[in-house]
């Protein structure tokens, strides 16, 4: 479950990061449009809520709620370091993570 949460939370946090003008410029190389800002925020918040919902509806929901907060920190650290050292690959990494989520859910 921790793995699934991580693969959902990482792209969500990446969306929230590119909703910030400074990080958006570093990742995409162009200015952030006001409309885009709202979309990115919605995507990010939606992803975090979806992950939270997944954690809360599982059988071991107490442990998974903890896992949700723990993975928030781990994913946030990963997003931060990617933004520093390889901002351009952030979208790709986010998409790869997201595509791994169903596989991990099935496997775990």
């Amino acid at each position: 479950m921790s793995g699934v949460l991580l693969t959902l939370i990482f792209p969500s946090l990446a969306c929230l990061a590119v909703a910030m003008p400074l990080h958006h410029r570093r990742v995409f190389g162009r200015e952030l449009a006001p409309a885009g800002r709202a979309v990115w925020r919605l995507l990010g918040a939606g992803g975090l809520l979806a992950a939270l919902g997944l954690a809360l509806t599982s059988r071991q929901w107490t442990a998974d709620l903890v896992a949700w907060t723990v993975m928030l920190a781990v994913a946030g650290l990963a997003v931060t370091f990617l933004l520093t050292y390889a901002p351009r690959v952030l979208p790709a990494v986010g998409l790869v993570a997201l595509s791994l989520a169903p596989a991990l859910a099935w496997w775990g």
Partner: protein
Amino acid sequence: MTWLHTWTGLLLGWVLFAIMVTGTATYFRHEITRWMQPEMPAHSAERQTMHAGLARLQEIAPKAGRWGVELPDARSGAASVWWQEGPGRQGFKREVLPALHQSGPAPQVRDTRGGEFFYRFHFQLQLPHPWGRYLAGAAAMFMFLALISGIVTHRQFFKDFFTFRSGRNGPRTTLDLHNVTAVLALPFYLLISYSALVIFMHMYLPWAEKVLPEEKEAGTPPPAVKMAGENPIGSPDLAMILRLYDEAQSSWTAGEGPGVRRLEVSSRNTPEASVAFSRFDTGGVGMQRPARLEFNGLTGEAVEQKTEPKGIVTAIHSVIYGLHLARFAGSGLRWGFFVMGLMGSVLVATGLVLWTLKRRNRHLSAGRVPFGHWLVERLNLATIAGLFIAIGALFWANRLLPASLVGRGDWEVDCFLYAWGAALLHVCVRPVMRAWREQLILVAFLFSGLPLLDAFTAGSYLRGSMQAGQWAHAAFDVAVLLLGLVAWMAAVRLTRQKVKQPEKSLTRPSAPQDEPASEVA
């Protein structure tokens, strides 16, 4: 508030750093023990292991009053038996079981504290009881205060969310690292510092307990532990214990939970003989007593367990306690906790370094370095790099000390302490920036060299464990290698960085009366 953050962070910051690092290691204490005892045979929690354990007990301790068999779980792969022949700890003995397919005596496993060392150090700090626990409690309180005041001090952090500027500007980079590690895992830090206080609250705040009158015990006092009598009546025989084991195992695994972890036969050879099985439940985050199934040792009938009524306060307490220990965490979540522990260690370390970075230039332009600053710079280095040197020395000693050495486990701990002492001496005689570089290189050497040392001294065990699909041993090697690489990178960065440093003036403290006490904002 800034003032409070600065000083609560600094005063016990060094203690706090050591607690954070050893606590982070404690998340993997069973895995560390497995690495430090590579010759420990791996078992599986099967009926045969239980049978072998009982047969061994029958052979070596037929008259013991108490018997126990500990089956392995997913994290610690070892099985052992214990027995008690007399009262007190003297009569208590424990033995590791040989692997199932091997015959002959139990294997010689090297004497080591293993991961227990980190666990104990985390809250006792290698100090005489109870002072280590009091110091750790004070450090937890200071951390809690530093967190509260830090939230106020650095409250503009949302503007800089996800921002880490790794540039030539050393203080800026350090501050970013401090903020990033703080903000991302803030609930975790608040939780671990507060729960640390709650765990030992009967020591830190015993007053509520003292003023409330003891409740009178209802009914008869619990029976005293009975030792074996001369006549062998009432000893449950092996077949019966195994039958009860099957019963307990099937009733537990039917509910998809883990199976039996421990067996305890008590009051053997007396009419009160009893057989009890226990396991740890998984799922909930709360701290709980192990579940127990108890049987009458003569008749084999199940004994009704008293279930204590649980109120809401007990439930809250058990969740706070359980979250700190994180026993509920599976391997993925456990790595997450480990990463957060490392983040916490970085948080404390960068906070300590920031204290000196902020003041350094001012002292340099004034031409004199006060004694307080000299001391903090050196304590920072001796704690941050020195602790990792000590831990590295502990692991190297584990592989290099001869297995036959008397008191080997204590020697390992001595190596840890001597290495730390040597690091402290080293920083007192070297210019501080050069000492940083030298110690970081030593850390890098010790940690990234460990997998190589492991391959030479315990390579066959490493291969064996991997072939058996056990990854703890290999994961340890990878983890220390990565930590070593981080130390390399830090050392390289320090070498490249041009720091304004008339090193000479920093090597000698000026008179202690120049100490900057209260003018710091």
